[in-house]
């Protein structure tokens, strides 16, 4: 149990927000990315951050390092190789059975110890549920600045990190600096930064770091893990692919076409507000201003007019495909791909096309 930190006096003068780095932080160098590695898989956001981190490191003329923790050493070494091929110069590896499942205490202690030992100037984490949970406690322990959910990172001429993030629910953006403390911490939303191309054969240095952890010191125990894929509850807010229906489906029975396509694509399904009002579907499936806000990779809107109340709930999707019989439907103003056709006819055809391509033979629906 780390004892609560004694608050160190704040550094630097506040007048005019000038940036004067205290002596002890002057030696902090290099850009780090915390690599999320759970259930044997790297979270794609970590690779995106390595791409972004490479750009920042090159601008600063410093090295890009990855930091990864877990239980299985071979797996961690494989992660290091993957990191080198995505731009990392070195990877700090911390292997310990206690780190098998993510828990706040041990992972905070590990990351804090790594930072205090190797002193990075920039530390990036994915703005995932894990990343935000970890970043919050590490930043407080280090008494340093942390900017959440960044959508853009730059290095200004004073070699400082300029982090831009949405505020007021995304209606505004603001650029934030960490003035006089190091490391400058930031979490970045998945699928905002580009995935860098893999450079097969690129190598780098691995640094094993030993931490002294004792299971009985750690009070939080993981009992079970239920993956989304296996749970039946609507996980619209977290789904990568969403297929939704609107009044254009003309009747509740046609919602089965929406569900069929969603199942073939391994995604989730929902609908616009009028469907809830007409009782065609439960309220927790509603997408839009008074329903869920979704940020999937692919959003297929079938028979949805795309009124502004719906638009604000789906604008974060990477690719919006809109099917509507009315060429003037507002949804065509913000969708990427538009098809002026009857969704009730097109959806089954789309389901068959994807099923053939993915040679998925189980019954959809």
């Amino acid at each position, binding site marked *: 149990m780390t004892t*609560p930190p004694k608050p160190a*006096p*704040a550094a630097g003068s*506040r007048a005019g*927000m000038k940036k004067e780095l205290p002596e002890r932080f002057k030696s902090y160098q290099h850009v780090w990315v915390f690599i999320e590695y759970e259930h044997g898989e790297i979270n794609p956001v970590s690779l995106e951050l390595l791409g972004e981190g490479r750009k920042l490191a090159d601008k600063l003329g410093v090295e890009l390092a990855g930091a990864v923790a877990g239980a299985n050493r071979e797996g961690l070494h494989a992660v290091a190789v993957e990191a080198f091929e995505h731009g990392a110069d070195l990877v700090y590896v911390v292997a310990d059975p206690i780190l098998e499942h*993510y828990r706040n205490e041990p992972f*905070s202690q590990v990351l804090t110890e790594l930072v205090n030992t190797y002193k990075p100037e920039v530390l990036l984490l994915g703005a*995932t*549920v894990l990343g*935000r*949970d970890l*970043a*919050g*406690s590490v*930043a*407080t322990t280090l*008494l*340093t*600045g*942390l*900017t*959440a*959910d960044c959508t853009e990172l730059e290095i200004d001429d004073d070699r400082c990190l300029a982090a831009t993030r*949405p*505020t007021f*629910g*995304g*209606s*505004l*953006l*603001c650029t*934030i600096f960490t*003035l006089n*403390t190091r490391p400058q911490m930031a979490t970045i939303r998945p699928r905002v930064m580009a995935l860098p191309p893999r450079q097969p054969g690129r190598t780098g240095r691995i640094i094993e770091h030993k931490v002294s952890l004792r299971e009985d010191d750690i*009070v*939080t*125990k*993981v*009992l*079970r*893990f239920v993956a*989304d*894929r296996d749970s039946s509850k609507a996980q619209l807010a977290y789904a*990568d692919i969403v297929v939704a229906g609107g009044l254009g489906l003309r009747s509740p029975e046609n919602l089965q076409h929406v569900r069929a396509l969603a199942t073939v694509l*391994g995604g989730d399904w929902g609908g616009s507000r009028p469907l809830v009002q007409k009782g065609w579907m439960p309220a927790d499936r509603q997408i839009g201003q008074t329903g869920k806000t979704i940020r999937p990779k692919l959003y297929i809107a079938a028979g949805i007019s795309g009124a502004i109340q719906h638009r604000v709930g789906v*604008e974060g999707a990477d*690719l*919006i495909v*809109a099917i509507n019989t009315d060429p003037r439907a507002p949804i*065509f103003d*913000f969708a990427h791909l*538009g*098809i*002026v*056709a009857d969704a009730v*006819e*097109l959806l089954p055809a789309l389901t068959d*096309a994807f099923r053939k*391509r993915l040679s*998925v033979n189980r019954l959809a629906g």
Partner: protein
Amino acid sequence: MHIVVCIKQVPDSAQIRVHPVTNTIMRQGVPTIINPYDLFALEEALRLRDKVGGEVTVLTMGPPMAEDALRKALGIGANRGVLLTDRFFAGSDTLATSFALAQAVRKIGETWGAPEIVFTGKQTIDGDTAQVGPGIARRLGLNQLTYVAAINGLDLEAGTIAVARRAEGGVQELSTKLPALITMLEGTNEIRRGTVPDVLRAARAEIVVWNAAAAGITEMTLCGLRGSPTVVKRVFAPTPRATKAEQVEVKDRPFETIADDVMERIFAAQPALEAELLRTAAGY
């Protein structure tokens, strides 16, 4: 049992809209509300109190008018409201905020008994950082449970609590020791409406108002702007992406060909998607 719930009075950011076309920021006449995520935390606290007895104290840090948020929380059923207000707190970032709130929670503990659980909402709708909860946990040595979807078990004698929390790609079930800091997910419960006695008691209640000193905060350099390592340099409206949809040709083409065309364009726009789908599809 004594539970502290941290709430924040925020502008109703759903009303601060940037019109997607005109791109102007609409701020005028925006009322303040209790941060919606905090209400789910308050409801969960009230349910625990109703089950095992005890009191719920609601704490907020903000300008004097934040008292209205406390009264509304009392009206929903909380027992006591504490307002932490001091001009030194102005401009606090999440680090300075969690410092002040942690001190206030400690003072509340000294005054009405140390809380077994400190609740906060998942995040605020104006800051969206989700950092203050973890900050309080770290400063008070509370076991941190964020993105909690449900409380599965509470054993006061043994001092343990079991929860289900949102994790990457699924739900993690954990158990840990009290005292704990819990940030609640939205939609976990339905928020109750206070009874007539609740709202009358709230209207008449004496709100406890503390400035920094009264809350036992002495290191003023750790508060407000001086205690904030991060500073906002620029606020601006995002440039709207008002590009029209690229239309797929439909005139006298059978639905199969249109469907294939659409599928090809989707995979062209999202190359990684096809690989991922093949992998997940193979997993069935």
